[in-house]
């Protein structure tokens, strides 16, 4: 299991590289969105280790909240108001 966690950390570092380097704002948004999905995977691996449903609760809420965050960022980049 530790190996899986280390590999997931490697994925997260790739995303962080893109967040830092990304030439444009949408590049950074993509990287943040993918980071959210990877954190869901991280919580899933932790719930295998501990066998508790606490981490699955975090995973579900994280998936939904990061989805709303990405939509808000996309709307902001597009330059529209939120009620459209």
């Amino acid at each position, binding site marked *: 299991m530790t190996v*899986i966690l280390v*590999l*997931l950390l*490697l*994925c997260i570092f*790739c*995303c962080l*590289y*893109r967040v830092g380097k990304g030439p*444009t*704002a*949408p*590049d950074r*948004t*993509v*990287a943040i*969105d*993918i980071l959210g*999905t*990877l954190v*869901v*995977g991280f919580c*899933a*691996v932790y*719930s*295998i280790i501990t*066998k*508790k*449903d606490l981490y*699955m*609760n975090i*995973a*579900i809420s994280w*998936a*939904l909240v990061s*989805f709303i965050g*990405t*939509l808000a*960022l*996309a*709307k902001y*980049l*597009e*330059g529209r108001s939120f009620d459209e």
Partner: protein
Amino acid sequence: MSEAAGWVFIIIGITFDLVGCIGLVRLPDIYNRLQAATKCVTLGTCMILLSVFFFVGLNSVGVKALLCIWFVLITSPTSAHAIARAAHRSGIRLWVGSVMDKYADDKEGTEDTA
């Protein structure tokens, strides 16, 4: 038996996650990155969640993992679509090696009404 299936799924999942993140770093422009990252990371995370179901069996953790697969499968393509449209509307051009861009061609004519 079900633990073996769990290991198989978690290894496939982590491989696809890694491929998606390498794509995120290597590919040349935002649309290609979005393609690689969305497809691979979505399936990879779904595989990891499925392996949770195989490891713990049918109890509260497993059922939550299955629900989480459903949420990820619905939300991930939608946010990719939102980012792609936002990027195109905020004026980011395609990679120089691209073949054609019908969307920009069509938008030229209707720029004033938007």
